[in-house]
């Protein structure tokens, strides 16, 4: 919970207007040309006086997205143009920080334009602390969304004219405890469905999984020496023949060994999770989940029967159930 004094202090600031920050230079062609060059903008409306004169704009204009550029501080930190306010529009961030929210990340920067700026115009802006939200927790940590609105004007002797606006929102927060790699899984609003891990499949093993999809447990067989093998492989261990086909297992089996997984609890599996090393009556073994088992009744050698179950609508696995009676 946020400190109540913090909330009081912050609310006192919301709505406050901060004074003018002026542009160092009037809108000018050299800066426009350099900006366009860096940003990869090649519209001649911004850089070619002859082209611009014949356009609907009757002369050069500045790229609208440069709005923020004109009033930026100089090369040195906080070095604003003469006449600018010494007030700090970001004082609310310092205040929040003093209550133990050291980190900041910008989350919105939305520009609105009233009209194009032209070379020779002089720009300034004022800032309003628009809002500070309630304390929220995101994947990054716990803190406050702070929204500032900067209004941009061009000076005229007849009165100043609004030319655009910037809505700037940051998240000022205390980081989640994520200094280790394993911690802090990103919290998202809609928790993704965790599916069963899918097996890697190769040309040597695809038949097995396609068999499962068709409701058949297939065992690879060497067509030279008839040896059955699992897990599947490209060559026979006995005679080194690369020729093989497969036979369908009867589904009758016995329990050769087993474990019951308790920890770590990893989605999407149930815990405890009984898993068997299954010996098929054809003589080969495979690992498979056990269903319909009671812990105290599990014993090595007990008869089992194959069944298939499809997970997540896409992965069909062979499972084994104790034969009753």
């Amino acid at each position: 919970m946020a400190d109540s004094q913090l909330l009081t202090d912050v609310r006192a600031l919301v709505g406050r207007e901060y004074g003018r920050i002026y542009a160092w230079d009037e809108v000018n062609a050299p800066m426009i040309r350099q900006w366009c060059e860096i940003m990869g903008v090649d519209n001649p409306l911004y850089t070619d006086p002859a082209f611009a004169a014949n356009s609907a704009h009757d002369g050069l204009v500045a790229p609208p997205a440069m709005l923020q550029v004109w009033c930026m501080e100089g090369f040195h930190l906080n070095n604003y143009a003469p006449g600018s306010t010494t007030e700090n529009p970001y004082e609310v961030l310092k205040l929040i920080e003093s209550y133990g929210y050291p980190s900041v990340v910008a989350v919105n920067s939305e520009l609105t334009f009233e009209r194009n700026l032209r070379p020779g115009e002089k720009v300034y802006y004022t800032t309003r602390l628009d809002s500070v939200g309630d304390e929220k927790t995101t994947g990054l940590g716990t803190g406050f969304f702070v929204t500032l609105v900067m209004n941009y004007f061009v000076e005229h002797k007849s009165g100043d004219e609004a030319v655009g606006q910037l809505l700037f929102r940051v998240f000022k927060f205390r980081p989640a405890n994520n200094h280790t790699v394993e911690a802090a899984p990103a919290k998202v609003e809609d928790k993704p469905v965790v599916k069963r891990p899918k097996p890697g499949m190769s040309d040597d093993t695809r038949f097995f999984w396609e068999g499962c999809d068709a409701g058949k447990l297939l065992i690879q067989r060497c067509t030279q020496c008839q040896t059955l093998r699992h897990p599947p492989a490209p060559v026979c261990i006995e005679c080194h023949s690369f020729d093989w086909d497969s036979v369908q297992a009867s589904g009758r089996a016995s329990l050769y060994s087993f474990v019951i997984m308790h920890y770590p609890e990893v989605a999407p599996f149930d815990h405890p999770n009984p898993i068997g090393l299954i010996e098929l009556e054809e003589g080969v073994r495979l690992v498979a989940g056990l269903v319909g088992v009671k812990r105290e009744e599990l014993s090595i050698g007990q008869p089992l029967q194959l069944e298939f179950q499809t997970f997540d609508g896409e992965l069909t696995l062979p499972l084994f159930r104790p034969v009753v009676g």
Partner: protein
Amino acid sequence: MTQSSLSGSAAIVGLGATEFSKNSGRTELRLALEATLAALKDAGIDPSEVEGFSSYSVDKVPEYEIARLLGCKDVKFFSQVPHGGGAACAPIMHAAMAVATGVAKVVVVYRAMNERSWYRFGSGSYGFASTPIFENVNYGWYMPHGLHTPASWVGMFAQRYMHTYGATSEDFGRVAVAVRDFAATNPAAFFYGKPITLEEHQASRWICEPLHLLDCCQESDGAVAMVITSAERAKDLRQKPVVIKAGSQGITSGQQIMTSFYRDDITGLPEMGVVAKELYRQSGLGPEALQTAVIYDHFTPFVLPQLEEFGLCERGEAKEFIRAGHHARGGKFPINTHGGQLGEAYIHGMNGVAEAVRQVRGSAVNQVDNVENVLVTAGTGVPTSGLILGAA
């Protein structure tokens, strides 16, 4: 027995390590350098003399960066052995081979990891994808069913071993209790001063039946490094030489990584049998010539078949060996006197090699009397490795 040209050619002459913790607070690279520089200082060898490096997967610290930071100019041998903990002894063997053949005169072996604070092997989430490379296809037989942690793969063997030989969860617990007893008197151990009872083992929660929490080793941050040079030069260095009497890796029939479930029998560790046979052949020694051993203990059940593969007891009789307390403090063959990975730290087995070095030097905190030869084994259930280290 004939001795190979490897046996006795090289020696471990320097040993260095960082502290072992749950969060080192510094990079793996820094840990590797701290351990390496400590090992070189221990050996009295200048870093510029290093001509080779060896480590094992999944060490993320590249040897070229260590070489660059040490200021090495003439590095002629480097290797990174695959299969994680199964490789724990192999870099020493590789280093000894490089030294014995004259390719490199001084080799640094290292393992540095922030396994606990940066990533965890037991998370059950490995991101295997569906592209048809072998590893993805292979884990496709297990991941969709949720058989997705080292504890679960070991559990499948353990359940069958219990069924076949009548070993019990209490027998696994006796392994844990004994190594935690050693850790309790080892100030470098994470569980220093924290022994456990068999009742506490039995009451600890299930991780994956038949494994309780206290059957599973901890996860750790830390680094260990060693310096290997010729046995000849070792005579003139400041530490008592720890001679590499034998080293071997092992793969055998039906080998898979943690899932060799398709062998006729799954109660043994035949790849460790390959290592045992080769270690005894190279060294000309047998089990009776060993005074102690560091038996890889990422999970307690696999300690039992390792004792059997090395002929320290008969097949299926490790439970009697354990019930008699032979493996414990004061027993006839104490193992994992540093506290094992269950008690000291999980530095992927390299801290076990370090304990064997200390036992031969006579500087272990839980020193065994009159140590001449020490067996060290590496990770089980995977392609593995082993060493016999001894006095000159």
